[in-house]
């Protein structure tokens, strides 16, 4: 009888496990995507922060510094993504990377005191990305540009 129970149990397990694993696989894939996107937004945030420190360390009242973000991947989990700087109105608050067509996103802390220009969002699928920081009389402005 125990052979029968074990055999039936294993057959049920073999039939049921793919379902459980598909749920787990999707969840894991989503979690990995979120962390990859967070890694990307960390990189962007860190680049903008370094540009800000570089710009603020000079005596020049007006200047623009930029850095090509050559380590950005083209896709995350085989999907293109959009990189954006979000704000609370005027000031930049965080960097967000979001998969195109999905609600999966990763975000990173951004040094306070940076201001935004109009172009704050860029689709990675179409172009390489450059981070900019401009110092002028109104403060430090950051944005992302494509080329």
């Amino acid at each position, binding site marked *: *009888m*125990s*052979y029968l*129970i*074990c055999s039936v*149990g*294993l057959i049920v*397990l073999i039939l049921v*496990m793919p379902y*459980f694993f598909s749920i*787990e696989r999707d969840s*894991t894939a989503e*979690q*990995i995507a979120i*962390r990859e996107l*967070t*890694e990307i937004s*960390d990189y962007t*945030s*860190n680049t903008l*922060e370094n540009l800000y*420190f570089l710009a*603020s360390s000079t005596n020049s009242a007006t200047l623009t510094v930029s850095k090509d973000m050559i380590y950005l991947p083209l896709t995350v989990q085989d999907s293109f993504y959009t990189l954006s700087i979000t704000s609370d109105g005027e000031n930049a*608050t*965080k960097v967000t990377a979001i998969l195109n067509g999905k609600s999966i996103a990763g975000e*990173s*802390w*951004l*040094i*306070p*005191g940076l201001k935004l220009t109009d172009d704050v969002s860029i689709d990675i699928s179409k172009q390489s990305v450059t981070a900019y920081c401009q110092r002028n009389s109104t403060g430090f402005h950051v944005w992302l540009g494509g080329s």
Partner: protein
Amino acid sequence: MNATYDHLVAIVIVGIIFISTVVALPAMSFSNMQTVDEQQLRNTALNVFDSMLLSVGSPSNWGSTDPTLWDQNKVNQFGLASSGALSKYVLDPDKVQRLDPTNPAVMEYERVRTLLQLQDYGFRLSLFRPFSVNWTLSLTQSAVTFSVKVTRTEDGTPIPNADVRVTTMITASKLSQTNTSDLIYKAFDPKTYSTDARGKCQDIIETNLAGYSLQYAVAIIKVTVAGMSTTVVAQNDNPITKFIKINTFGDIVTLSFRNELSENETKSERRVIEIDAYDFENLYKIFDGTAMSPPELKVVQGQGYEYWSMKFQNLRALNPTVLLFVMQLTLKGQGRCLVLIAGPFSFGGSEEIFGFGPEPGPEKVIAIMTRLVVIADMTYVAKIAFWRE
């Protein structure tokens, strides 16, 4: 009966296989995720730490605001870097002092979190010496005895051949005191020592003050190891010093008295007899209150304390490591005496100078980062503990 056992064993085996497959594998992938989370927390901690240590904040001299005009809400951006520094990781001592909760003009933890937009995170910022310095200091009637032990912070290994430079100041009273002229203070020329194989050095400084009895002594000990220096202020047991605190605000020096001090003293006059600035090498007198008509000291009432303040031209440019006050107080049970107060930082501790922010809970995942920073020409280890709330 055997068949029942047989069934039970089979069910248990199948159950174990099922549970271990469904639970254990996701748990394994979860632990990998947690490692990535920790790394990303470290990334954020690094950015926040750099922001604190490299940004000057706004206004750029926010730490030097006159204490009577201080309002933490007028600080628009938080950063501890010195605005005039040519090098990185050079911090403004005035800004660092604003983080000390015993300060008359304090920047609160929640305000800093708001300015840094860290609502979802907690942190604790601490300053440590680059190496550990333990000291003892005691008085006899005519001599000051001190000992210093220098060790590595990491493992307590003694550091031999450390350069130890000791500058001592004492106050004394005539054995038969009749008036204030019987109270004296004296600074001794700096003496240099080296630590032995156990990381120790000690000496007895004879004051040669016949007819006087020593009351208080302060030894400013500068310890240099491999070109890196730290300063320790050693003093004999004095319950008064914890109620009196020195702070600087640009060129303004304040001396604040907590209300608890009044429990230890009579209502007699308090006087500042002398203020000296220690610049790593020597003591320089910057104020002499023994003159017939000493400069007026401004008294301000605060909540739970009162403080005196006075402006000294170019104090900020002098950037002293330690300020030493000679105060005349009338203490209960002791009478009139001269007391030595050192500041602005609490240099008495062997390792941590001070910490800002709450201690993290034991259950929290913490990212810890350290950096060497320079404050008033002295090297410290700045450490941040960072966690998600």
